[in-house]
């Protein structure tokens, strides 16, 4: 059985066996990554395989805590305010979703809710659920289903698209009335950057290696 040699695997998670590229199924022999902030790519198709960061779990924890705070503030404050001839109207994310529901566009309202509220929350909640115990050296309960929930939620959390949507609406409305960007738009902007940072830090290989290194939960240790 031949496999392509690869110039790298993170020292924090030494390779135990062959791996396969998730996008082209090429069989690979992983080798430790030495350089911090480096990343191994598939030599055939260029897919991201795994990366090496110093203190990855601490960084993940810090970024995800900041992201949770930004997420909560983004939901609590208005996104845009509008002044039409003395009448001041402003809306939060929930206000906009509720308005669509009242207009009897339930499907649309659901789609906006799922992509801007539910999936980003599931994504962040799952990261915290996995990272806090791992950081303390303990295996989190339900690692596999929670990790799967994170993988499922990730493509449907569309915070950055929503921000572009807010900008387009601001320009469109500026022809009608005075528009005032609300505090939530800045929170969403920070959230976008934090989520991008989290996405580059997270990779399944190292998270699962951290899981293997961590102590088993009492319930698992009882199993034969």
């Amino acid at each position: 059985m031949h496999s392509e040699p690869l110039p790298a695997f993170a020292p924090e998670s030494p390779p135990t066996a062959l791996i396969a590229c998730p996008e082209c199924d090429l069989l690979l022999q992983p080798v430790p990554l030495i350089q911090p902030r480096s990343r191994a790519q598939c030599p055939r198709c260029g897919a991201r395989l795994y990366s090496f960061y110093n203190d990855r779990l601490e960084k993940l924890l810090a970024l995800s805590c900041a992201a949770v705070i930004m997420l909560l503030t983004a939901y609590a404050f208005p996104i845009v305010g509008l002044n039409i001839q003395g009448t001041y109207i402003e809306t939060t994310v929930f206000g906009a979703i509720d308005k669509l529901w009242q207009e009897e566009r339930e499907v649309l309202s659901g789609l906006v809710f799922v992509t801007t509220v539910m999936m980003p929350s599931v994504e962040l909640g799952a990261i915290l659920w996995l990272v806090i115990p791992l950081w303390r050296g303990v295996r989190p309960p339900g690692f596999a289903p929670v990790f799967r929930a994170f993988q499922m939620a990730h493509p449907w959390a569309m915070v950055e698209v929503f921000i572009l949507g807010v900008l387009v609406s601001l320009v469109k409305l500026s022809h009608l009335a005075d528009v005032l960007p609300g505090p939530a738009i800045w929170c969403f902007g920070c959230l976008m950057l934090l989520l991008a940072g989290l996405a580059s830090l997270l990779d399944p290989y190292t998270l699962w290696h951290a899981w293997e290194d961590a102590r088993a939960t009492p319930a698992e240790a009882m199993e034969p």
Partner: protein
Amino acid sequence: MTTRQSAARCGLALCEVCGQMSPLPPAQTPTRAKPRCARCRSPLHLRKPDSINRTWALLIAAYLLYLPANLLPIMETHSPFGTDEDTILSGIIFLWQSGSWLLALIVFSASIVLPLVKLLSLTYLLWTVKRGSTRNPLGRARLYRLLELIGRWSMLDVYVVTLLVALVQVQSLASISPGAGVVAFGAVVVLSMLATMAFDPRLIWDRAAERITQESPHA
């Protein structure tokens, strides 16, 4: 030179959840229990099951909704002077005429060009895989990665309509309500994203790899 070997040919399946490799018995072996990953208990398979057919089904549904999404009004503006209906295209023309040509270009790319490019590219990928093409697998793999990256940006118009509906609610002056087009449009975005996820990019390489092995049997 070493042969570039796919894991599937060695009887190894990659767990899509945790990345663990597991030996998978050949499909002919009648086993009652579905093979599962030893580490995370997720179901194992060499390729996404029924990938081509599921992708076709979702893709065709997306094509069917593409026309209503672009032709039906995405929002209705009610004012004392009557009701205006806006389609995606008329919204872009409005932005262009009011001088926001950069934004007009962004919305045009995200709402009209991207969904169409996405549907056509996915059709091309499916067609080349079905035909067993061995040409330029790297280019096609990159095209697939691009599709995964850009698909979400088509949600732009859905968010714009949501915000305009929520904000422009001055009964005596103007109020905006969402049109049927925006529902169809959201459906196109969701269906094409689901179609992209259903497609297995490893299929692009399977035939191409077969040919390389045939060309160099002494490796």
